[in-house]
């Protein structure tokens, strides 16, 4: 069966969206929208965006949406879920917000096994502010704050792998990539199911940022394939 072009839960008034052409956020959100449609949960879902390009999704859905600051999209989601345990709370953030400035909140929520779902878009840099280096920046990757190539000697930060040992045994952690819509939808569905079962879940989506990567379509795909060599997709904790 062919899929409609846009999910039903999308707020048509907000289109065209504010994302750059070719941005991975649009693809991620679209697939998230399809899952919300499939599960018929749009009226009982609360979407919490962060600061960063994720915030451009503040009116993307015809769904209750709130916006917070770096990584605090997890904390506000915790408060929402505790107040309204029957809702589905989805926290949506970038790698800079989630893994650097606000990492403490992911650690806290994961440690306490808060029943929220985090979708974290990893484009390997701070996109909204002009493409500075993030903890996810690949060794040698050129960014606006490291024009000669990242000076990081360590491997980039692997979020789900970092959280895995500190999470509750029932937590669900996975990484998928924006070029694999079937897997994105599968993992997001599992993550939401895990929230319904009362557990924490996080899906990292490896994503494109052609604007800050300064890549055309072909070079975007090439760099993305290169990143996938390090950022392995799959379930990192939980059922396959």
């Amino acid at each position, binding site marked *: 069966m062919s899929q409609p072009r846009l999910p039903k839960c999308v707020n048509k008034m907000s289109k065209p969206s504010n994302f750059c052409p070719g941005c991975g956020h649009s693809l991620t959100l679209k697939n998230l929208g399809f899952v919300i449609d499939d599960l018929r949960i749009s009226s009982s879902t609360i979407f919490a965006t962060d600061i960063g390009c994720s915030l451009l999704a503040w009116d993307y859905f015809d769904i209750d949406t709130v916006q917070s600051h770096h990584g605090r999209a997890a904390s506000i989601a915790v*408060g*929402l879920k505790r107040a309204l345990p029957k*809702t589905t709370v989805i926290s949506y953030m970038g790698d800079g917000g989630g893994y650097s400035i606000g990492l403490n*909140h992911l650690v806290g929520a994961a440690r306490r096994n808060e029943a929220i779902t985090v979708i974290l878009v990893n484009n390997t840099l701070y996109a909204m502010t002009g493409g500075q280096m993030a903890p996810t920046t690949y060794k040698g990757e050129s960014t606006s704050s490291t024009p000669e190539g990242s000076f990081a000697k360590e491997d980039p930060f692997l979020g789900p792998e970092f959280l895995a040992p500190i999470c509750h045994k029932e937590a669900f952690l996975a990484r998928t990539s924006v070029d694999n819509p079937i897997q994105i939808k599968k993992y997001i569905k599992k993550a939401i199911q895990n929230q319904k079962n009362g557990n924490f879940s996080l899906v990292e989506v490896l994503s494109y940022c052609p604007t800050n990567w300064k890549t055309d379509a072909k070079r975007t795909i090439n760099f993305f394939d290169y990143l996938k060599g390090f950022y392995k997709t799959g379930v990192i904790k939980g059922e396959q």
Partner: protein
Amino acid sequence: MIFLQTEDEPAAGFGVLGAALGGKKSWTATAAAGHLLLQDAVVAAEAMRIPFVAYIGQRGGPSTGTVIYSQQELSIARDGGNGEGLRIVLGPSNLQELYDLTILAFDLAWRYHLPVFILGDGYLSKMTGEVDLSAKARVVKADPIVQNGKRVMNLRNCYSLEEEIARVLHRELKDYGSIAKEVEKSEVYKCTDAKIVVFAWGSVASATKEAVKKIRKDGHAVGLFRPITLKPFGATRAKQSVRNAKKILIVESAFGKFGRLVTEALFGISDIEVERLYKPAEGITPEEIEDKIRKML
């Protein structure tokens, strides 16, 4: 009741916001550096008009400091963050007020959808004493903001155009102006004929009142002006309270944070002498205040 110990103050602040968005009365407490971190959530509350309540047990500073006396967090509570400080700050001066003003804080936060601070100190937080709990709390319902059964809410606190944020700010400032008139609260104690009016707030005001009472007994015309809402600050009543005064004295456990508010409120009155008893991060006894006033007689 749900109690949650979070990883840090931003998490506590944003957790409180999440719960308030979901229609539950929620609050948090912190001090000093934690208060700075909490302001992150407070500006979000201001921007999205979400009810928010926090108790602050002020600590001596700079930095993380001592834990009993201080009135140094007044400016952060009033104006912390990069907004226009659209919040209400209450200053209890004794245990009874700590109880009553906490009830009021919830009432105001949910009535006006604004952040409300109860600005105490370690002295108030740690003391024990008798409190009359019979006052009935006015109950403002905490309706959910999201999942409200009426319409989908798309809330944000980040704007990309100056004109856009300016429009929002002007609307909010206007609204705050009319709220301010309704909530301003102060205690004016024996100021009508006072030649000397002492300005103090919080637990320092309790000590000041003792001193003023004692000097009154000797027949001297001394009064006390004590703001209960430190924001909004009741400038009109403050001005009225010094109508017959020749001198004022400002007493605080900080170096002029409160003093600047007082002189701003009294701006335009020129024929009045201003004395100060500033003891940043130290307690102030009734005797010290009495001494100071007697020297001014």
